[in-house]
């Protein structure tokens, strides 16, 4: 890559991500939230056809199933021996928040779970519904809903929010709702990108602009979340983190592995231990 191109890329990235910096952290959630929703809707509806295409824009995300599905099955099943794949997660109800085109919802349903896929972008839900309808073995176990997590009234055995928290405007409100829709002693799984210098270089500049693994402008580095922040927010809403694991993508082989450092991608598993409903209001007061 030439030096000129590198500088152009860097400039674009910095311009791109310096914009919402001050607005998002402090201000009230109403106005910027709609901005983010609009941005997400705009970004994702462009990519509506891409979800299930091999070598499409979401290839890297679908490959992450090699790590996140075993993580979920291991935590939900404990160390019971695997027998029939179709009964691995039988009896578990799982909500997949930010399900996108259903890249994770479908495998979970195929393992026997009853999955609710939730996404705020209508075109994502349309793509997910269309794809699941072609597989008779799973279509009865997946229920896709287009909407916001705050409108969900039921409680589930487990919640999965994979590559979502970095797209969420009001993280505190989001985590509060995540905790709310999980049954006591239920499981919460998050995968996201850490906010470090390395993640700016690798996950933002590298993946979006240099090797084109991820659609350009999909991520905003300022909105990435560190494991510590996520852990604090979860603790505030009654969830205890049991494990944080780093993940690494190998662009040449095209696969993910667990990785000793959580400085770029990481997965986090938490268990809901308390019921934070009474404290909810009090905690919500801004500093």
């Amino acid at each position, binding site marked *: 890559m030439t030096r000129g191109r590198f500088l152009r890329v860097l400039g674009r990235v910095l311009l791109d991500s310096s914009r919402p910096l001050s607005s998002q952290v402090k201000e009230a959630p109403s106005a910027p939230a709609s901005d983010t929703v609009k941005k997400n809707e705009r970004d994702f509806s462009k990519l509506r056809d891409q979800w*299930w*295409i*091999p*070598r499409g824009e979401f*290839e890297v995300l*679908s*490959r992450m*199933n*090699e790590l996140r*599905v*075993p993580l979920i*099955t291991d935590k939900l099943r404990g160390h019971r021996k*695997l*027998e*029939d*794949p*179709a009964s*691995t997660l039988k009896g578990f109800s799982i909500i997949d928040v930010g399900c996108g085109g259903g890249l994770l919802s*479908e*495998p*979970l*349903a*195929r*393992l026997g779970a009853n999955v609710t896929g939730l996404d705020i972008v209508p075109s994502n839900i349309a793509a997910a519904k269309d794809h699941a309808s*072609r*597989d008779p073995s799973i279509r009865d176990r997946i229920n896709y809903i287009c909407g916001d997590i705050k409108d969900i009234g039921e409680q589930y055995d487990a919640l999965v929010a994979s590559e979502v928290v970095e797209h969420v405007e009001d993280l505190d409100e989001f985590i509060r709702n995540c905790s709310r829709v999980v049954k006591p002693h239920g499981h919460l799984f998050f995968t996201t990108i850490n906010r470090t210098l390395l993640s700016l270089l690798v996950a933002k500049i590298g993946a979006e602009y240099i090797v084109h693994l991820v659609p350009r402008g999909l991520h905003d580095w300022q909105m990435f979340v560190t494991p510590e922040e996520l852990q604090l927010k979860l603790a505030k809403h009654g969830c205890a983190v049991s494990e944080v694991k780093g993940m690494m993508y190998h662009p040449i*082989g*095209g*696969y993910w592995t667990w990785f000793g450092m959580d400085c770029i991608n990481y997965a986090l598993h938490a268990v809901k231990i308390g019921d934070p409903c009474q404290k909810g209001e009090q905690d919500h007061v801004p500093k």
Partner: protein
Amino acid sequence: MRLVCRHISTFGKHSITNHNHVGRRFLHRDITVIGGNLIGAATAVALAASPAFAQRAISLVERRDIKFPQNLNEWSNRVYAITPGTRRFLVDQGIWQKLSPQQKHVCRRMVVWENQSDAALDFRGSDLVKDDEDVEPDTVCFNIDQHALLHAIYERLKELPNIELRSRTRITNIELPTLDRRSFPPEKVTFEIFDEPEKHTTDLLIAADGFNSQIRKLMGVKNVSWSYKQKSVIAVVDLDGLSDVDGTAFQRFLPEGVVALLPLGNKKACLIWSLVDDCAEQILKLSDEEFVETLNRHLTDTLDYNQGVMSVLHGTRLIMNSVGLRQSCSKVTPPRVVAVHPQTRASYPLGMGHAVNYVVPRTVLVGDSAHRVHPLAGQGANFGFADVECLVRNLAGAAFRGEQPGDMKALIAYERERQRALLPFQVAIEGLIHIYQNKNLPVVLARSLGVQILDSLPYLKHKIIQFASR
């Protein structure tokens, strides 16, 4: 996935016809294996026995009738040298347990030499580190008759309820899915069975139909292949002479090919003699006595020894001895063949083949259909069983991750893993063939010196044998 994109054009022509005729029945099997020989049958067994596919319908289709000779303890002229790595796979699949003790002969030592000098390599099983408790500690390989091994696989197959075995069945009109970007996931593979009205569909087609694979041709994958213009002459022979003749495999590189003897016990051995086509024809026509005489001449003669090379070897041997490096075998004492069993002489052509891709959507190649090798390393069957192990492991992993059956990611992982493991071997075998066909003095000298030095370095030898017996 560059490969997948390339196949879009290749596939188009196989999937034009619309087959939804009125009243036509569709039969679905989750996985169909084509080819019921060793590798195909082992694939069906390994899949059906895996917990990931215990609830799946698996079909094994073979063109021929599957039948076995009366006495399976008698040795035929096709014998496989099964490495400890393959044995582990066969044990895991419950196939090994079906073999009686007299059907597997343990080979503890392997001697490799040539005809231009007396440099020799001597591998002993004791060089191998054992991770299995119940293998005799110094096994290089197990020699197992083809019929006995196939019979053991079919005995195991009968115990598995979810395999449907269809012998004497010819499949026609195979249609592989197009990889149209709009119709993802790819459609199922469909085919018909000769003389049957139903249409069959399957999620995953596994082709174990040999080096001349029809499925591979249909897949449109590029296949790099050439004939060695050699034939392998095989026979069962009686040996005489050495005391450890029952535990040692002999292999001699000659300019026209390689002559190898795999011990079978009771002073019997299986001969695998690769020869230039014309020589092979002549040798097959010889009478039994003449055949034995010719064979002995090729095993023992020292007429082609190059005196210059010999003296250099002798000199380096003295130097190496003085610094404490000792060869494990100073001089090869080849066995003497006393008789050839009647009606056991046969031949088959040799070639090399390498499919550039082993997989396309919903279709995968295993064994000889993906890679064909020269028998000099005795690895053809071992590579095939390793393919099966790798494929089933990847497919089962994908099933437990909730992937669709026939998922491309698992297939690509299989292809990557196997090609990475096999290509070095294929290159090494090619290299050996060319190095030993050469009669030029520098090449002869270099290879003889190399072999002599290698033989006195236990560490390297150990590494090589470990690599080859995985």
